[in-house]
């Protein structure tokens, strides 16, 4: 089963750039001046890589969040990072700086992180549940602020904001891809570096503490690392939902193994899942469906199927 998934996913990743509205015959691709060559290397390939990296960051981020908060419902958006990015994008659009959207989005995401940790630093003791609740409160605050933005915006601006919240993998060239690749590598390095301590978090706060681990520090480092990476991803693509929630759960159901052994798989299959979703979004019907719609349409039924099929241990 696992090998079939791996084989299928590799095949998918390799062939994904060749599927799309425009057919890409091989003989035309070999000419570097051809339109087909341009489409493949300037549009399709960056798009597949963007989907892969973003999916990977969201999925791995979800896994880490679920362990740190000891809550299977957590996603990398739970702390309000995506809501912060959305609000600031809306501000950019209304203020007439649409082109600076990603920069605003990233600022919004980081501002959220700073506010969160400034509050967390004031807690007397280590309290992940309280931090989670602060994140949720912040999300509601942002949602209300976003409503104000909608209220103040013109029809065209509203449309632009709405499109951002649906998520988009439109990309030209490799500029952002390098950045995302570097962020992904850093995130993977971070979870790999704290692997042993992360494993101790799978038990209980007390047990991890008794093994000498500084649980508060560790949790904050992991949350901060994930939040920054997710902030970068979301500022490029908008908040793409569901990936961060379901991929870790699907992998646990398939692999029957503890979360610490699913770090690389989470990243890889999160990436594959978003590439697949994007493939469907690009090739289904006449126009491109928003990616966020597809992830939920594809993911939700499969997720429920797996939950029903789950063997009780």
């Amino acid at each position, binding site marked *: 089963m696992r090998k079939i998934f791996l084989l299928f996913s590799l095949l998918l990743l390799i062939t994904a750039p060749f599927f799309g509205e425009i057919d890409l015959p091989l003989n035309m691709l070999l000419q570097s001046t051809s339109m087909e060559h341009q489409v493949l290397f300037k549009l399709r390939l960056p798009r597949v890589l963007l989907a892969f990296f973003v999916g990977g960051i969201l999925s791995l981020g979800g896994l880490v969040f679920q*362990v740190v908060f000891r809550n299977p419902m957590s996603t990398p958006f739970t702390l309000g990072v995506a809501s912060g990015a959305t609000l600031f994008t809306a501000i950019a659009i209304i203020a007439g700086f649409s082109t600076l959207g990603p920069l605003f989005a990233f600022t919004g995401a980081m501002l959220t992180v700073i506010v969160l940790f400034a509050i967390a630093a004031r807690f007397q003791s280590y309290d992940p549940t309280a931090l989670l609740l602060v994140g949720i409160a912040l999300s509601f605050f942002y949602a209300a602020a976003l409503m104000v933005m909608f209220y103040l915006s013109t029809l065209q601006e509203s449309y632009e904001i709405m499109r951002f919240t649906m998520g988009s993998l439109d990309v030209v060239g490799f500029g952002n891809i390098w950045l995302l690749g570097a962020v992904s590598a850093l995130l993977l390095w971070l979870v790999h570096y704290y692997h042993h301590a992360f494993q101790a*978090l799978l*038990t209980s706060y007390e047990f991890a503490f*008794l*093994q*000498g681990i500084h649980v508060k520090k560790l949790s904050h480092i992991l949350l901060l690392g994930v939040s920054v990476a997710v902030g970068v991803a979301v500022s490029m693509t908008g908040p793409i939902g569901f990936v961060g929630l379901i991929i870790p759960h699907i992998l646990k159901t398939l692999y029957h193994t*503890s979360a610490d052994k699913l770090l690389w798989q989470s990243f890889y299959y999160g990436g594959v899942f978003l590439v697949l979703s994007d493939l469907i979004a690009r090739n289904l019907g006449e126009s491109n469906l928003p990616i966020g719609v597809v992830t939920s349409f594809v993911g939700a039924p499969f997720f429920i199927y797996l939950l029903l099929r789950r063997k009780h*241990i």
Partner: protein
Amino acid sequence: MALQISNYSNGILHNVSFSVKRGENLIILGANGVGKSTLAKVLCGLLPSNAVKIDGIIPSQTYGEARAKRINYIPPKLEIFDSYLQVQEFLALSHFNKTLTIEEALAQLNITHLKTDPCQILSSGESQLVLTASALLHRANYTLFDEPTANLDPSRMKRLFTLLKHDTTLPSKLIITHNLDLAYRLGFEILYLEEGQVTFHGSSQRFFDQAHLDRRYGGSIKKINNHVVVTL
């Protein structure tokens, strides 16, 4: 080299002071809710306090092996978040004592068959034995056991008693228990907590003197055939 707590008070405990030298054992007795587990959490640093010193460190302010090698606390229940974490993976997390292998520790408690089971499916008795195995693999200078026999069937209880009594690998064992017969048969020094205060700290012999037991328990505890029993 000692574990020491001086004039500690919080909402539950009042002015608690005592010390245990490395190599000595202690049994902590007291009624439900007098603060035994709270005391354990203070000693191991889970509840921050500067009143505790263990072989030269303050546990709530020290991290890493410096603390882990000095003090360990074995709670009455095994709490695991992850559904698939196996017993052997759990034990590997506290494997500081490399002179003992995980297989040996499991064999010592007769639970080798649990090695690859997910921790979450264990019964309460099995998880208590797994926790005891983790204490052996951890081998801190001072190990606090909180109700180590509460969920065990008679044969496993006997096995754990033998282990606690005759084990020489753990330098100091501090055992919280309600089981007076266990406390009596172990013969370790006794600390008695009453309403958050230490009201007895002395030898097992003095505590289990019938006249002393009568004063403390109002005649409901009797020594019969070298065992301590509750008269129901």
